[in-house]
Every structure is written in C-alpha cells, then in structure tokens.
C-alpha cells in the first residue's frame, strides 16, 4: 500500500521550482493563471490547469484548424463538441459516431492501451443516450517482420478483442496498414457507432442550479494520472517513466455501466440533465466541461468519490484516468431513484456535488476548500497561433514513376503478398463481428461493413480509411483522397455517404512543417466532405506522434457512415455469376506515384499527385449510387492499393470463378491507382440499362468465367495468366505467415 503522505509543494515552491513546467504548463500560461486568480495557484489547482490546458483536453493548438471543418447540413443534429456527433436517419432515429486515438497508451502497453481505447470510445457513444452497435479499428504498424511489431500486433489485436468481444459490441471493420514510419509509433484509432432514439438524446451539460452531480461506475485509483499531459508530449524511447500512465480496462464493469446508463435514460430521461464520460483528465475535465457548457458553477465534495486506493489526494482524485466512470447531472428529486438503478447492479453511484449559481469551480476535501477557480477560465486554454511552413520535400517534386514490368504475373502475386494488400483475416478473426446478429456485411466481404437496424428496412454502412503515403506526397490531395476512399467504400456497398468522423495523427505541431501538413490535410478532407455532402460531425486529434524527434508521416484517418434505405439495395464485392460482364468505372490515364506498386518496386514514394477533378468525381460517385439503387449491378468494388489487378483478384477471392479481361491500354496500367475508380459486374439482362446510365463513365473490360483462372491481356500483347488457387494462396496466407 502506498500510504506515504508526501507533503505537497506549496504555491511558492511550485512557482520557484517551476514544477508546472514538468506538467506541461508554460511560463506564460502560469503567469496568466496567477494574474486571473490574483494569487498563486495551489498544487491541486496547478494540476487542474495543466490537465485542462493540455493539447489533449483543450485542443489549443489544433483548434484554429479544426474550426474550419464543415459540419452542418440538414441531417446534423449534433456536430463536434460533444461526446460524439449525431446525424438524423429518419423515423426519429439517429446515428451517433466518433473516432478516437489511443496511440501512446498502445505503444507502451499494447493490450491495455487498445482495450481502454475501445472502452473509451464506447462511453462517448452511450453517454449521448445511444446504444453502441459497432466498433471499427484502424491500425498502423511498422515492419511486420520485426519482433517488436509482432508483439505490438498481438497485444493490440488481443486488447481490442478482449474488450469489444466481452462487452458484446461487434467489431465489424477497420484497416490494418504497415509502414516503416510507424515502427516506433504505432497508431491505434478506434471508431464506434451507435443508434439513438432521438427522444433519448443527452448531452454533457450541467444545467439547473441545485441539480445533483452523480458519479457512477468504477472506483478511482491512481491509474493514468496525467494521461492527458502524457498524450500531449513526444515519446522518448529511453524514458520509462511515462509508463505509470497506463490504465487497465474492465469490460464487464463497462457493460454494466453502459446497460444501466441506457436504462436510466429510458426510465428517467427527462430528469437527467446531462451525461458525460470520464475520459482524459477524468473527473476535472468531465465536470468542468459540463459546468462550462451550461454557463454554471459547480461544487464537488471529493471525500465522496469512490476510491480504490487509500490516502488519495485531491490532485490524484481529479486527474486520475481510471476507466469505466461516468458523470450524470440529474434533478435532485430523482437522484436517489437513478442511483438505485446503478446500485442494483452493484455499481457505485454517489452524489459528489451540485450545480451552483455563479461560475466558480470549487472542490472540497476533508472540509477544506482545496480549489476555487472560475470554470470558464479553467476550460479555455489561451489560444495559440501556430506557424506553418511548407516542408522542403514538397518543394522539389520528383519525376513521375513509370513502371517497367517484365513479368506481370509475378508482379501481381508479389503485390497480393504485400502486407498492406494481403488479407487481414488472421487478425480480424479474433474480433467478434457477428454478436447481436445484425451484421449483414462482415470484414472481408465488401469495402465497408454493414449493420442493419432491426424493426426497419434500413442499414448503416461504415468504414475507416487512411492513406498516409498519399498524405506524405501531398497533404492536401492526400486528405482529399482519404475522404474520397472512404466514400468510395461506402458507395460500393449500395449506401449513401452521410457523414464522417476523423482522427488526425500527426507529429509535433510546434514544428511549422508538421502544422502545415495538419492544416493542409484538414483542408483536403474538408474540401471533399463538402463536395460529397458528408459533414464532419466528430473527431479526435493525436499530436506528438514522434519518437526521438522523428515524426510519423501525416496520417489523417477518416471514418465514414452511410445510410441504406432498404437492405435489398446492399451490394458486396464478390462476383456473383458466370458470364456476368465486368466493367471498369471511370477509366483514366494511369498514375503510379504513391502507389503500392511504386512502394514495392522502388521501396520509396515520390512524384506528384494529380489534382482531383471535382466535377468528374462527383459525377462518378452519383452514377455508381444510381446504378446500385436501380439494382443494375451484381457486385461493386472500388480500386485502391494495387489498382485494377488487385481489385479483380479480390472480387474473385471468395468465389469458384475466374475472369477473362482485355484492356485497351498497356498491361502495366492494371496496377495504376487513380481516385474514384470501381469495378462492377453486370448480368446480361441489365447490360443495356447499365450502359445507358453510365455512358462513357464505364468501360466493358471482360467477363466472369467458370474456369478458376485470372487472365488479363493488355493492348501491348503482354498478359497475366494465373490459376486462382495461386492468387488466393498469396492473398490469404502471406501476412499470416509473415507474422508467425
């Protein structure tokens, strides 16, 4: 037991020793606090400010960029700023979603880091009053041959499985990519999607003077103290101290908290004023933000906080990031009944404070006032203006990459074996994707996952997408293409894209080049979001993804949701029948810069990316949607890593068929990667209607054959001819074998 009562430094000592710097506060910020309070902040107060003013909690550095996101259209019921964003899907229902990064915790402690990432994002969803229905995970690792990467993958995959499977929310999709840039700094981004009855909508606000502030869920321990500050600093591989900041998750507890919170919303919804989960900077950030949003003050009695360890100080209680805890603000007459719901499940439920008149945030501990600061001051870190410079590498653009492939069949097999292309089934097989029996399209079956909404004809499509290679070559176009890729994946399932969330994974924002990348990527995402009518309704920023001074490639992750009005419109990527015709949608001159092929052949990326033609992209996306709505296509798959060659292979993967394809271009073009391209298969009955609709936007390239062989001929007489057994083996076994 750590019972040692170390004497806390006095306010003067904090100032003299500049202790606040170790917690991330700058001299200027400290002085500002001193000025505003007209006294020196004490130890607890300094702790509160350092956590609340960290980048992780305040977004003080990224805010100027985030503010530019377009986040309004007639579906948006809740944009950024709450636990999660909300979109209207009709019938008084809404979809709620958000993504979150758990990069630093997962680097240190892969199992618990990933597990608590899932736990945290789910709390964001059910704190809005919504039932979580799906989890997706976007994972970026270093070289799969390195023992350290294997250890990280094992831990992260087991952690997501351990939490998601136990709580019973299906993990339906995601992405797994490998690049040396993530060797020291893996990325673990998780997205959760929930279904809301609009009447149950709750936000994180502490309205109503005299209302009760109720703490529910797990006890508070010393785990994760200063996690927010930790996530707001660079990682030093030689320094182990940061390690104490990792928490252990308890999915069993979270399931009880989730189910009971949702029950409380159904039973006492009108009397529950606000709900918020305790995430980064735990108790202080949840309560202070709730008070601030309502323009109120708050008083808390810390002696009442359920504690797991003895002798915790106010500082520790406020900054602990123990998991599975929530704050409810409720009308006092209903406080007892609501707490009884939780107690019936053996959960803690305690009134720890009240909403007050005025704007002070006041903490009492052992009958003493231990913190007394203005709420709105605590929640508004001083704005920062960040410098931007275009990185030198973007100034001198290399010439275009033109492949010259002597053995195209071998090239295709090698591409299929690339860790970024090969099947991830050996990893996602550990995730329960079908619990609740609502998952219509599972991992590996289509470009996006689909979850149906019971008691309606509707379904939701969802995907996460990242392409840091493109963002590295051109942050703006890379951002555009991250969003476009997500939209392609959604559209390929027959759904209409309706909105996005994002996770912005970047290096140290104090570096003007990195800030430039951040700003440009966001501008690119935003540009496409507006074009495709997918407002940005939530998101998360993860900065300081650097180890020993080396930043990761700029890596914006886009999580998109699409709506399907009727489940009979769902399409998957597999070819369906022999003799169906295969069409390439949006034939374009080949481009290889930033492609999987370039990465494989040259071992590096270079060259310019072609600007995106808005009109053309919009027209293609609309046409594909019209084709699926009119039931004109049997299968749809978008072209991404590895281009047409890989897409064809994937559409054959789970079928007994083969394909015969003839190109009007040189064979090499089959590896080109151009945005907004798809392959579809069309039955002979629909061929005419399909061609009438598409016009020049679709080009017939071949046919599905009964012979399980992939045969592609270029207009240069070069050809690929491979038995499907070989294609399947490469695709299915390569990654799995490498990770052994």
């Amino acid at each position: 037991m750590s019972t040692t009562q170390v004497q806390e430094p006095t306010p003067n000592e904090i100032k003299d020793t500049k202790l606040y710097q170790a917690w991330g506060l700058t001299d200027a910020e400290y002085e500002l606090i001193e000025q505003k309070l007209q006294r020196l902040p004490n130890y607890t107060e300094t702790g509160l400010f350092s956590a609340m003013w960290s980048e992780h909690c305040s977004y003080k550095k990224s805010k100027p960029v985030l503010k530019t996101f377009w986040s309004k259209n007639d579906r948006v019921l809740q944009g950024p700023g709450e636990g999660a964003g909300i979109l209207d899907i009709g019938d008084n229902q809404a979809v709620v979603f958000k993504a979150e990064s758990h990069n630093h915790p997962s680097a240190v402690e892969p199992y618990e880091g990933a597990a608590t990432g899932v736990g945290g994002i789910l709390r964001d969803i059910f704190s809005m009053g919504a039932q979580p229905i799906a989890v997706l995970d976007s994972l970026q690792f270093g070289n799969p041959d390195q023992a350290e990467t294997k250890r990280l993958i094992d831990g992260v995959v087991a952690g997501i499985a351990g939490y998601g499977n136990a709580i019973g929310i299906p993990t339906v999709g995601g992405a797994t990519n490998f690049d040396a840039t993530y060797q020291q700094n893996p990325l673990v981004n998780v997205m959760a999607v929930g279904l809301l009855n609009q009447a149950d909508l709750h936000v994180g606000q502490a309205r109503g003077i005299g209302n009760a502030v109720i703490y529910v869920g797990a006890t508070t321990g010393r785990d994760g103290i200063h996690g927010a500050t930790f996530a707001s600093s660079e990682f030093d591989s030689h320094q182990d101290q940061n390690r104490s900041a990792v928490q252990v998750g308890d999915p069993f507890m979270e399931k009880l908290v989730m189910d009971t919170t949702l029950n409380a919303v159904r039973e006492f919804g009108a009397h529950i004023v606000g709900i918020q989960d305790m995430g980064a900077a735990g108790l202080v950030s949840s309560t202070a933000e709730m008070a601030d949003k309502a323009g109120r003050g708050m008083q808390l009695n810390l002696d009442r906080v359920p504690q797991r360890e003895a002798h915790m100080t106010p500082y520790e209680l406020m900054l602990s990031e123990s998991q599975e805890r929530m704050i409810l603000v409720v009308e006092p007459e209903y406080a007892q009944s609501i707490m009884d719901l939780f107690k019936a499940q053996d959960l803690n439920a305690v009134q720890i404070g009240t909403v007050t008149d005025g704007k002070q945030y006041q903490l009492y501990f052992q009958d003493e006032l231990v913190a007394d600061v203005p709420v709105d001051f605590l929640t508004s870190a001083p704005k920062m203006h960040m410098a931007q410079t275009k990185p030198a590498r973007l100034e001198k653009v290399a010439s275009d990459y033109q492949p010259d492939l002597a053995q195209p069949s071998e090239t295709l097999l090698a591409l299929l074996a690339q860790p970024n292309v090969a099947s991830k089934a050996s990893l996602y097989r550990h995730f329960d994707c079908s619990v609740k029996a609502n998952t219509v399209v599972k991992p590996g079956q289509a470009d996006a996952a689909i979850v149906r909404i019971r008691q309606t004809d509707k379904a939701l499509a969802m995907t996460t997408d990242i392409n840091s290679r493109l963002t590295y070559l051109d942050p703006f176009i890379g951002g555009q293409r991250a969003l476009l890729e997500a939209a392609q994946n959604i559209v390929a399932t027959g759904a209409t894209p309706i909105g996005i969330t994002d996770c912005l994974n970047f290096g140290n924002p104090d570096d003007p080049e990195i800030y430039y990348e951040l700003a440009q990527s966001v501008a690119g995402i935003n540009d496409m979001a507006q074009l495709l009518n997918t407002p940005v309704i939530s998101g998360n920023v993860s900065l300081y993804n650097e180890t020993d001074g080396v930043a990761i490639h700029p890596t914006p992750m886009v999580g998109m949701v699409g709506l399907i009005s009727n489940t009979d419109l769902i399409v998957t990527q597999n070819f369906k029948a022999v003799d169906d015709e295969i069409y390439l949608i949006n034939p374009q001159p080949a481009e290889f810069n930033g492609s999987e092929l370039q990465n494989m052949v040259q071992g590096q990326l270079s060259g310019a990316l072609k600007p995106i033609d808005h009109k053309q992209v919009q027209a293609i996306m609309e046409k594909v949607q019209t084709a699926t709505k009119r039931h004109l296509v049997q299968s749809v798959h978008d072209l991404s890593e590895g281009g047409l060659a890989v897409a064809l292979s994937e559409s054959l993967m789970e079928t007994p068929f083969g394909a015969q394809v003839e190109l009007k271009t040189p064979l090499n073009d089959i590896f080109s990667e151009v945005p907004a391209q798809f392959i579809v298969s069309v039955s002979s009955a629909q061929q005419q209607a399909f061609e009438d609709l598409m016009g020049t936007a679709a080009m017939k390239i071949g046919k599905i054959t009964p012979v399980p062989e992939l045969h592609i001929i270029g207009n240069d007489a070069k050809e690929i001819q491979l038995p499907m057994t070989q294609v399947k083996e490469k695709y299915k076994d390569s990654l799995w074998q490498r990770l052994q």
Partner: protein
Amino acid sequence: MYLAKINVIYKTSVLDPQGEVIKSALHRLDYQTVERVVQGKYFEVTFDAPNEKTAQQQVAAMTNDLLINPNTETYHYTLTEVAD
C-alpha cells in the same frame, strides 16, 4: 535441472478487476470474512542451468522478458534443484 515456481500479481496500484469480482462471488457464497482477493498467474518452469546462481539470473531474465509485464505486474519465485 531446476524448477522455478513463479507467482505473478498486479502491482497494488493497478486495478485487478478479476480479484474484485471473485471477492464479491465469495461473499455471495457466504465467505463473508474475505477482505481481499488478488488473482495472479503462476508458472512452473523447468530448465537446465550450470549452477544455482546462473539459474536465478535466468529466472529473473525470463520472467522480466516474457512472463510479466513490468508496467503492471510484479513477481516472486522459489527455485529448487530437481532430478533431470
């Protein structure tokens, strides 16, 4: 040949969800006097080493390298010499 018996538990500051749930279960089974339950792991590792000192070093090394997570767990062990 040596036999190491290694007990691994969470550090006291780390949440032990299993221990808490087992404690409640024991209470429900009328073992009301149970104050605290910690669940950990137990390993028996049989291995060869030239002498006891090296054996001890090896146990510590294996345990730190693989058997425990030094961020969250601690361990203690006993070592005995056993017949080959």
